[in-house]
């Protein structure tokens, strides 16, 4: 994408005299700025989304006063945070206190360089994309320990130590789970991983249910691996129920206790950037990235017809159980189905891969993370370690071996 942008810049008559290295640097800067803008806007949208989701799950309304339905609430909050006084505690380690939040933010923003948004839209097509993302995102723990230590506050230090222990523990099952997928594809390139998931096939290779060739439907082991990865990644990004580094009821705000204003906003930004990154990785590795769930034009029509029938059945189920008619899922799927049957162009667009499907999948995973957050209670520290070392690690190892055996059984690889 950077090379494309550089070529596009040089294609203008006025700019054709520019040295190609200058054009390259300029387009590099533009892409970096675009990624940062995406992360910032993403955080603003997701904070609003999260507040609304939590409110609806708790029978509340959420922000309603700033803008229509409170849509400008997070904008107002961001402006407030930028205006706040810049406080550095007197006994804090000033250098680390200032650098810490930036390390966290940079570590979480830089990972987006390797994330493919669509088949053409990505900053850098790396051979080691998956490895790069996993390794860079673990620098976040360095920033957390830096900020926790620099705050010179017992809550901050506790939060930082917990965070270090937690992230290091959970990176092992997460890494092994991803290795299982890499074993299937034979590549660390994220684009190659997505391309390997195109088309449709049977569920778990033998069960005759036509489903897209996503890795979550590849084998029972990878199906489990998707959940292992989701749980491990939730812990890695310090989200509830694994939020002991910033447990409000125990540690005030953990490693963020002493931070305010812009620096706190950076923490918030990186938190949502990390959540988005995890959602992207789940979508890329297990849900086929920018691949459409429908193989072709007819598949779209039939697929949405099936979805409408399922929605109808679900509506009747809800009606018999609660006495209320839930019309939204049914109405939405019905509209899309009718549109798919009436307008072939729409169906073709739905069947073609693209950024729409990527963002749909990412949005669903983020919603799932929010759903986790507002449902589950926080784990105790020993329970956290138990889940990591005694449940997820054995499970991921079993998955790795099971995937190898599965591929030998299905004949995907031969010895």
């Amino acid at each position: 994408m950077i090379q494309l942008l550089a070529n596009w810049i040089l294609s203008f008559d006025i700019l054709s005299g520019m040295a190609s290295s200058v054009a390259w640097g300029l387009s590099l800067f533009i892409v970096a700025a675009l990624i940062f803008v995406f992360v910032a806007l993403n955080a603003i949208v997701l904070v609003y989304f999260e507040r609304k989701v939590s409110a609806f799950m708790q029978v509340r309304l959420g922000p309603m006063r700033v803008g229509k339905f409170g849509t400008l609430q997070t904008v107002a909050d961001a402006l407030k945070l930028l205006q706040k006084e810049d406080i550095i505690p007197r006994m804090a380690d000033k250098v680390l206190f200032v650098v810490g939040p930036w390390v966290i933010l940079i570590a979480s923003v830089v990972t987006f360089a390797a994330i493919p948004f669509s088949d053409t839209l990505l900053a850098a097509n790396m051979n080691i994309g998956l490895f790069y993302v996993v390794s860079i995102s673990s620098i976040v723990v360095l920033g957390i320990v830096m900020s926790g230590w620099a705050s010179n506050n017992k809550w901050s230090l506790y939060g930082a130590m917990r965070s270090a222990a937690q992230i290091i523990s959970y990176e092992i099952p997460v890494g092994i789970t991803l290795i299982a997928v890499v074993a299937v594809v034979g590549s660390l390139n994220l684009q190659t991983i997505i391309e390997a998931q195109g088309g449709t096939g049977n569920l778990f290779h033998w069960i005759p249910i036509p489903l897209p060739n996503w890795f979550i439907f590849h084998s029972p082991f990878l199906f489990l691996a998707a959940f292992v990865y989701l749980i491990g990644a939730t812990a890695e990004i310090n989200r509830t129920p694994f939020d002991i580094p910033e447990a409000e009821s125990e540690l005030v705000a953990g490693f963020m206790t002493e931070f305010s204003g812009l620096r706190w906003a950076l923490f918030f930004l990186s938190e949502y950037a990390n959540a988005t990154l995890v959602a992207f990785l789940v979508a890329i590795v297990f849900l086929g990235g920018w691949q459409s769930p429908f193989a072709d034009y007819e598949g779209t029509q039939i697929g949405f017809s099936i979805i409408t029938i399922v929605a109808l059945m679900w509506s009747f189920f809800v009606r018999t159980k609660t006495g209320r008619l839930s019309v939204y899922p049914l109405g939405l799927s019905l509209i899309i189905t009718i549109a798919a049957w009436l307008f072939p162009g729409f169906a073709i667009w739905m069947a073609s891969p693209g950024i729409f499907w990527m963002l749909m999948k990412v949005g669903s995973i983020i919603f799932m993370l929010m759903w986790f957050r507002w449902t589950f209670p926080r784990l105790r520290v020993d329970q956290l370690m138990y889940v990591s070392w005694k449940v997820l690690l054995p499970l991921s190892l079993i998955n790795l071996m099971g995937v190898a055996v599965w591929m030998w059984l299905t004949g995907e690889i031969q010895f």
Partner: protein
Amino acid sequence: MSYFSNISSAITTLVDGMKVTMGYFVRPREHVTLQYPDEVWPIPTRNIGVGEIDSYNTIRSKLHVDFEDCIGCKACERACPVDCIDIETFKAGPEEDIGTTKNDTKIKLRVTSFTIDMSECMFCDLCTHPCPEDCIRMTPDYQFISNDNVKLEVTPEERWRDRGHLIYQFSKVSPIERAQRQAEAEKVAAAKAAAMEAKKAAAAKVAAEKAAVEQAALESAAHEAGEAPEMVTTPTANVESAPEAPQILETVVEEEAMEKLDIPMETITIAEAPVENPAPTETTAPPETSTDTEDSSKGETENG
């Protein structure tokens, strides 16, 4: 085996919890949030079984005065147990037409200030019943919110409480008119004081002359009849009823003063209350009624 049962119970309970939250998420219209300034809880109704139900079945909260109907009788001010109502009235001029109330009663008093201190009000509803024009009433407005940021000046003695925003001014008379009326009233009071001085001087003069005459008569009688002790009581009785005579004089003096100031005669009655003019018959009244009238003598004399 508790290892696997733990994992399975964890999964089932997590799924149960997620079902609950999703169940609420898909029904956002059943929220419990009240968008307060736009939505409020309905005011509870009640029926205490006294009087007309309509006037009793609401909560009693902020007081309201229909100022157009107020005749300035101060009945509410007197009824208030905590003295939170403060009314200032001035008599209207003879040609002045202030208007009529909704009951076609002609308003004779200009109410220049009608303040209710809602921080003192105890919501007893006692002020609303004496009102002859039904213009003061309890409203169900429990929020005490207004869009205009009016804060009434409080006296320095009360400033530590800083409750100016809870003192409500219902009078619609402009401050300029109020100042004019106050100045006029001060003039009248000054004239009254002058009249009083003159009256007292006249009374003293008359009494002195009378006493001198009586003394002279007594002395002459004593001289003529020698010792007559029963006659001594009569002069004292005369002295006691002596103020009866200057009463006429007083009004004459006042009328002269009023003509000078071009102010109607009735205005005097405002300042008349403090003047002690006890007739011998009035002093025999029971003590409890006399204390009552002292408390609210200022208002009663105006009402007539």
